[in-house]
């Protein structure tokens, strides 16, 4: 092993990679796009108020206006007034793809003034998940408050809302280590499967074997590149996650071993898949069979803790699970002991796969 030749070859490999727009897209840009999409989808549903279509048949009466103002002030819903001329609100909601509506009956103000029973009608769509609960809760809360005031009652039991743990973990906090894991998996796997098979077909390894560069030097330069790519990608994701969604993750020193050994593991796995295949086409299929389950089932997009119990053992046989789990421990929970065992497992897998890959990855033929 001659370090000088590793450094001489490294820029050529990097250049070849950077000049291929698809590789660069998959490894650096695609994870950032994913974080923007997933971050936007999941952070909005929790925080923004649910639009509530309100048909006020007791128009501009002080009681109805006050009730709606109180409802709006909860922050859980946004009151959107609908003209009373629309008729059946249920049909209106369906036609406008709205999931929540409220009808205030005529004579609401009079009933409230005279302490007579009066009924509000709330429409929700159970298919829209948590939104129905939010709307019902908000309407019920304001109604109870009104009833209590009308009865001149004093609240005996009140509640105050606090959060558990500090900082509060949010989906975005798990998404960032998950997507770093995604990047650690995808960029070496896709390109090494391709390199292992097409370079063999085009005899580019043979071409390199005619120079003083050795197989070990080539592999070292290649590993360096993917480790560098993983670190850059991790930095980029933490930056975008922090800036766009205020994610609470930090690239701790403890996450670094995983950003080094993780890419080594998947370079070995990709090279193995590429080398054992007879054609680039078979290699592509084998590579996808290995990559896709790992991409979705290792806690990259969703924490494994949300998986049904029967799926958890499946996740635990996938090498990427330990990379993502370790990154979560190092970046989100600050739980070093769990990270050490993850690092150990990733190192063992990487060594095993590297040994297997070197058995099949040959530069010269017998």
């Amino acid at each position, binding site marked *: 092993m001659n370090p000088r*030749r590793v450094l*001489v*070859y490294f820029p*050529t490999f990097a*250049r*070849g990679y950077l*000049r*291929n727009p698809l590789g660069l897209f998959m490894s650096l840009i695609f994870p950032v796009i994913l974080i923007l999409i997933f971050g936007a989808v999941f952070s909005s549903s929790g925080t923004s108020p649910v639009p509530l279509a309100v048909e006020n048949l007791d128009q501009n009466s002080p009681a109805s206006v006050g009730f709606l103002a109180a409802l709006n002030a909860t922050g859980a819903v946004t009151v959107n007034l609908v003209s009373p001329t629309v008729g059946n609100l249920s049909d209106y909601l369906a036609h406008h793809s709205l999931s929540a509506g409220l009808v205030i009956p005529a004579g609401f103000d009079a009933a409230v003034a005279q302490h007579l029973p009066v009924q509000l009608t709330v429409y929700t769509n159970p298919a829209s998940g948590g939104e129905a609960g939010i709307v019902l809760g908000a309407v019920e809360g304001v109604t109870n408050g009104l009833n209590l005031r009308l009865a001149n009652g004093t609240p005996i039991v009140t509640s105050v809302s606090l959060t558990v743990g500090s900082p509060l973990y949010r989906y975005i906090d798990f998404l960032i280590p998950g997507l770093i894991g995604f990047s650690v998996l995808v960029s070496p796997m896709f390109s090494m499967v391709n390199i292992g098979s097409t370079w063999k077909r*085009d*005899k*580019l390894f*043979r*071409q390199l*074997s*005619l*120079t*003083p*560069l050795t197989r070990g030097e080539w592999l070292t330069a290649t590993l360096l590149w993917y480790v560098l790519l993983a670190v850059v990608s991790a930095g980029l994701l933490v930056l975008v996650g922090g800036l766009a969604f205020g994610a609470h993750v930090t690239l701790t020193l403890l996450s670094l071993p995983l950003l080094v050994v993780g890419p080594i593991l998947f370079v070995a796995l990709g090279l193995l898949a590429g080398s054992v295949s007879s054609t680039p086409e078979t290699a592509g299929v084998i590579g996808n069979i290995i990559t896709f389950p790992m991409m979705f089932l290792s806690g990259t997009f969703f924490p494994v803790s949300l998986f049904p119990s029967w799926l958890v053992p499946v996740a635990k046989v996938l090498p990427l699970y330990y990379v993502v789990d370790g990154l979560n421990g190092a970046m989100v929970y600050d739980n070093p002991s769990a990270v050490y065992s993850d690092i150990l497992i990733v190192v063992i897998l990487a060594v095993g796969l590297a040994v297997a890959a070197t058995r099949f990855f040959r530069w*010269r*033929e*017998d």
Partner: protein
Amino acid sequence: MSESVEVERLVKVYGSLRAVDTIDFTVRSGEVFSFLGPNGAGKSTTVEILEGLRRRTSGSVRVLGEDPWSSLDRIKRRIGVVPQDFHFFPTITPREGLRLYARLFDRRVDPDELLARVELLDKADARYDSLSGGQHQKVGVALALVNDPEICFLDEPTTGLDPRARRSVWEVIRRLRKEGRTVFLTTHYLDEAQQLSDRIAIIKRGKLIATGAPDELIAVFGRPARLRIVGEAALADRLRERGHAVTPDNGGLEVELRSKAEAVEILDAVASSGLRWQSFSTKSDTLEDVFIRLVGGARDEGNGPSVAEARP
């Protein structure tokens, strides 16, 4: 040293196929040595064994005095190789490739000077995947020259090239020879072998069937020179009466010559016969005729004037 390559009883077996079957030959320093044979005859296997890229089954191989398989690290610094079907990294330019090779070999080489030698300087900064087939081969040759090799192995360097590109590769080969390098060329183009080679070895189904200079091969394996006369059919009988071997040939006749002087004697007889004749010419075998007789008109693939296509 006068011998660059020495091969004794070389055998390469793939499963049940004896791709190379007990061959012996030597390549002298400074000569262009051509390995000639139809596709699948064992040319590339032999070359790859010489280049240290393939392990032999048995026999002895010495390239510049060393065993290429076990001493590849040393030998690859002294040989240049343009493999058959040469490929390079698609997004890398010739200049970048040459710079990489120069650094790997730890040599001070001016990439532009090498590119000028193969007439590719104008494409120095073009990505490899934007170049034509002939330009690809030239990149291969330029890369093979980075380490100033003593022997150049060129495995079918002109297969698939258009005539102009072929001729410019030929020029490069002639220049290599002029520079004192040994050139080991495999080809299935006979004109290429005849024009460029000092010596030729013909391989058929893994066995060497002839070795020698092109003229020697023609002298040994070719038919005797022939006199071809176009004229009246009765001429044939007249000459047979005089004891000549005559064969009818496409509107004329061919008479085998035992010596050059015999041609004068035959023409004299023709003139004095009173029969009419229009023209005469002499014919001798080319390397192509010899090759077809030895190899049996084996069907070759590829384009350009190869053995089989030149056959009527």
